[in-house]
């Protein structure tokens, strides 16, 4: 099943919203770079898909708290997640 990778903040881009629109059962969402800002504010309460992963280094670099229900990954975990899903779709516009 598809791994969706979002690297843009939902406050500045439609990437996450577009991703949600094509999210199917069995897919997974990975938030990286500014995409981790989806873990904040009203957006965080409205993530209706699962499972959701994020890169721990990117979360820490932005001083964010990890909400419950989100799994954080180091780089090794990131690679492993990519081996478990196919295809891998990146959303960045």
């Amino acid at each position: 099943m598809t791994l969706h990778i979002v690297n843009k903040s939902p406050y500045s881009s439609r990437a996450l919203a577009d991703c949600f629109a094509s999210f199917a059962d069995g897919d997974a969402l990975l938030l990286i770079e500014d995409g981790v800002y989806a873990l904040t504010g009203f957006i965080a309460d409205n993530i209706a898909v699962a499972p959701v992963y994020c890169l721990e280094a990117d979360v820490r670099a932005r001083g964010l708290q990890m909400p419950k229900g989100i799994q954080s990954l180091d780089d090794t975990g990131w690679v492993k997640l990519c081996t478990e899903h196919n295809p891998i779709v990146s959303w960045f516009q």
Partner: protein
Amino acid sequence: MKFSLAVYAAPHSSQSAASALRFARTLLEQGHQLYRVFFYCDGVHNGSAIAAPPQDEANLVGQWQALQKQYSLDLVICIAAAQRRGVLNRREAERLERPAANLAEGFELAGLGQLADAVANSDRLVTFGN
């Protein structure tokens, strides 16, 4: 598992180019194969030998070169995107009558067909957008 990466971002325009390098390094350390890295759009700037970032900032070009040497990687720069942005090897510089060539050692210029080939011959393609 065999990976290929597509990199769309220039080294200093966003975090994406650095993420791609991190991902490449990690997958190689985990024993996976990296079939090809294809640099497209502004990503072609990752192969410019004349970029001179300050010493206290990451030098992505140099780090890609080191990784290329260590693992004999196939680092391919899209030739059409590179011509527009001024990333040329010696042959292209002469052909297009430009005053200098700046393609970094370890990188090659090639066409979009190399991306299609990478998709066909890899288990996974991971795209790093701008």
